[in-house]
């Protein structure tokens, strides 16, 4: 077995050294009734690298690959070009095969990366500080709601109808067990967001208002009035960003008064990966630092006075605080955070702005062309790289029909809101820099066909 260095000679020498007659002697504590005498039945035996690669390769080929067809899906996961050097960097064995930096003297690489990551996330989101990552955007969103509850000592949060329905679902699942009250609803196919409705709903029991920016239909709303209304009642504004590239072009939530900004970092550096692993981003106002979940890297000095970094404020965390911890999170998503920060470093301010402009210009072009198809209309006034169309037919079968034509043409709102007939004709289309002129031609032709 190529991954096991011990030879049979080693094994017998070592058994002798430990005073055991056979390996079974080392498993004596296992109750007899639970000992397996031989191999688990019905399973194949070990296989060569070649054989395994063939098997997995066949499974890989049984998928339609985003990069090989015209591709327009978004709704919480975006396809951007990732520079080759990013993958090289995350495959450095010293990053890939290290552990959580519990021994800082020999983990300065990871710790400095996390410090830089925290700084980038905080600046991008317009907040004072950020943590060293969460599992993904949806779990970061729930952690933010919990944190707002701890800060305000209130238990009612209002979720915007523009929040990704899976994020709403995660929050609803968790709130069932924590006893928090959540108000949420479904969006309407309209250019108007529910900002006014949210503002009207905030009262003295509200811990937080949660608003996605841009939202699930791609709409962009000014967060300033919502932040002001929340603050007037002692509530927090939590902004959720599922497409951080947008912030190269539009104002950050922090600038508009959001107290906590969480997000999904997948679109920078990480790739689609069928939904995971992704990387949750979590930033907030500095005064909430002791209520934050997750790891934090901080600056300090070593015994010779040299600058170095350590994990800090761990008295918030489970390994010290146990049942009184701010969260149960331990392992988070550090390698994806590295991919995010390496890609963002390669882009820099200049590259991010240019990338964002390119996405927006492309999306504007596609929106106009598709909205010109008879019967198809554009729902959004404003958008970044993703917008919603109202089709003359149900969008869900239309998406499947486009697959038949070799096009991944968007996400139907029927997939996300299966119980809402009012949304059934909605199609969310995302357009990034990876889309070619030919892709647009093919999508336009396919949509013309299926929207008849």
């Amino acid at each position, binding site marked *: 077995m190529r991954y096991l260095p011990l030879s049979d000679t080693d094994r017998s020498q070592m058994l002798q050294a430990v005073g055991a007659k056979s390996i079974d002697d080392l498993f004596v504590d296992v109750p007899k009734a639970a000992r397996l005498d031989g191999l688990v039945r019905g399973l194949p035996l070990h296989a060569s690298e070649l054989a395994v690669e063939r098997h997995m390769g066949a*499974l890989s080929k049984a998928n339609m690959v985003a990069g090989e067809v015209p591709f327009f899906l978004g709704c919480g996961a975006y396809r951007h070009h990732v520079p080759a050097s990013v993958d090289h960097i995350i495959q450095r064995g*010293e990053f890939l095969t290290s552990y959580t930096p519990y021994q800082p003297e020999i983990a300065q*690489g990871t710790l400095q990366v996390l410090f830089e990551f925290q700084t980038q996330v905080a600046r991008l989101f317009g907040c004072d500080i950020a943590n060293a990552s969460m599992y993904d955007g949806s779990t970061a969103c729930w952690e933010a709601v919990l944190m707002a509850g701890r800060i305000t000592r209130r238990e009612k949060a209002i979720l915007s109808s523009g929040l990704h329905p899976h994020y709403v679902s995660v929050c609803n699942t968790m709130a069932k067990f924590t006893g928090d009250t959540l108000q949420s609803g479904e969006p309407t196919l309209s250019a108007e967001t529910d900002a006014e409705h949210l503002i009207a709903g905030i009262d003295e029991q509200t811990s937080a208002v949660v608003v996605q920016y841009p939202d699930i239909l791609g709409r962009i709303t000014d967060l300033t009035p919502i932040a002001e209304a929340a603050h007037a009642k002692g509530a927090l504004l939590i902004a959720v960003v599922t497409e951080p590239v947008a912030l190269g072009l*539009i104002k950050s939530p922090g600038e508009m008064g959001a107290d906590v900004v969480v997000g999904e970092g997948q679109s920078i550096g990480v790739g689609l990966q069928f939904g995971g692993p992704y990387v949750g981003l979590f930033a907030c106002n500095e005064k909430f630092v002791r209520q934050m979940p997750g790891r934090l890297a901080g600056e300090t000095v070593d015994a010779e006075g040299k600058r170095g970094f350590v994990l800090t404020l761990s008295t918030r965390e489970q390994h010290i605080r146990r049942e009184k911890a701010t969260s149960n999170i331990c392992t988070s998503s550090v390698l994806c955070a590295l991919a995010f920060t390496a890609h963002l470093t390669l882009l820099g301010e200049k590259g991010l702005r240019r990338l964002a402009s390119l996405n927006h210009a492309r999306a504007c072009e596609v929106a106009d062309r598709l909205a010109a198809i008879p019967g198809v209309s554009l729902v959004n006034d404003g958008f970044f790289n993703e917008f919603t169309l109202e089709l003359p037919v149900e969008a869900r079968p239309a998406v499947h029909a486009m697959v038949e034509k070799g096009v991944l043409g968007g996400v139907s709102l029927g997939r996300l809101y299966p119980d809402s007939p009012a949304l059934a004709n909605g199609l969310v289309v995302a357009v990034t820099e990876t889309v070619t002129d030919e892709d647009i031609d093919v999508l336009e032709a396919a949509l013309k066909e299926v929207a008849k």
Partner: protein
Amino acid sequence: MTVNPSGWRPTAPTNASDCGPETVTGNRALQLEEPLLFEGGRLDQTGVDLPDAKHSPARLGGLERNRDIGLPGLSEPEAVRHYTRLSRQNYAIDLGLFPLGSCTMKHNPRLNEKVARMPGFADVHPLQPQETVQGALRVIDELASWLLDLSGMHSVAMSPKAGAHGELCGLLCIRSALEARGDPREVVLVPESAHGTNPATAAFAGYRVESIPANKAGRVDLDALRARLGPDVAAVMITNPNTCGLFEPEMIEISEAVHAAGAFVYCDGANFNAIVGRVRPGDLGIDAMHINLHKTFSTPHGGGGPGSGPVVLSKALAPFGPLPFVAKGADGTCKLVEEENSGEEHPNAFGRMTAFHGQMGMFTRALTYILSHGADGLRQVAEDAVLNANYVLRSLADVLDAPFASAGPCMHEAIFSDKGFAEGLGTIDLAKALIDEGFHPMTMYFPLVVHGAMLVEPTETESKAALDQFIAAMRSIAERAKAGDEGLKSAPVYAPRRRLDETLAARKPVLVYREPVQAKAAE
């Protein structure tokens, strides 16, 4: 061939602090210092070539950004160098033994990395129509099937993102099952020796946590447990093998007692590597157990994740498992069971834990690892992991206090205490000296039930030669600690940094970089 005809020989410095003159750069040959990105990068620099956007009026609702973000960029050569230099300040399994107890730092096969990057896995969107992702769904289904066979359990929830997320999944299943039978309970019992995530998760799931004591043999005190069980106890969270590296020999009795009291058994599966292929948790009466794919099944830790924590469930808990999951039809096609079809397929699901389907990139790696090993290789994994740990235990038991060594063998990790060290020296000093010897230290001061605990988990991917070298280093340092060698206090000497001031970091937290002017203003 004569390499050095002059016969000249280098002279070694006589002590560690005399390592030669200071250098202008602060570098020391291959030990290269690297400034922060924010000190070297520039806002107008980029390492990505992008075409100009076609000019069109923005449709951004009047929310155009009008100030700088403050994100410096680097060209590609600068960026590659920045991260490569930083990487060299990390210890890693690729460099040497990483015996961090309960963390299972084993070799990460590179085939797994290659497979995870196949476009059919890496470049598919989670919301693609299901007919376009059958291969990806089959990966999830195949892995799930292996996990069920290896655990002997009834069903498995694949979506949890890491171990602690898996714990949460298991406890929410338990809570749902209790609520469904109209018997909500309030307390979760957790042994003192448990990982911190156990009590934190129980609290996160809305339970009150009480601890149960260990007996002198480092195991759960069954009598104390029986005495505490009652109608208010929802679950007992057990780690087995436990955090002292010992199997719970009374596990079946524990499960029976818990079930008789109407409660459920949650098992922390962090230590599954010790028993994979030799013991099935389903045969021990366990109701829910998470499996850390980033431990037992070798998906890389990546400096702190991503992990993946599928949860295997007993028949009693299976109906409550979360959405979404993959179901395989009679014709071999796979489908996702999500909110819309759960009414018919899985009506008692407790809900959704994460936006999408779980850690696909970890599933492909873990399945590749499992297929490579097969049933025989996996059993050998457990046996070699346990043999390596016992070899370390017996090779050090005469120089280090090993509190449970006299009672019998350990499982995949060996535990030692700092008993017998000279006054003023402790576990941390031994650990830091181990860094100078070129090893990552063991887990320190955990579990709390052993004084100055040192938990050593070598894993099965270490050769006998590597273990012998580690043992020699440990023996030497242990002797020095017992003899009161104050030099240990200054270790590590050869690492990129000396001991770091963690108190300062916590007292005056600096969590983001601020430009000098800004930083001054903030003070």
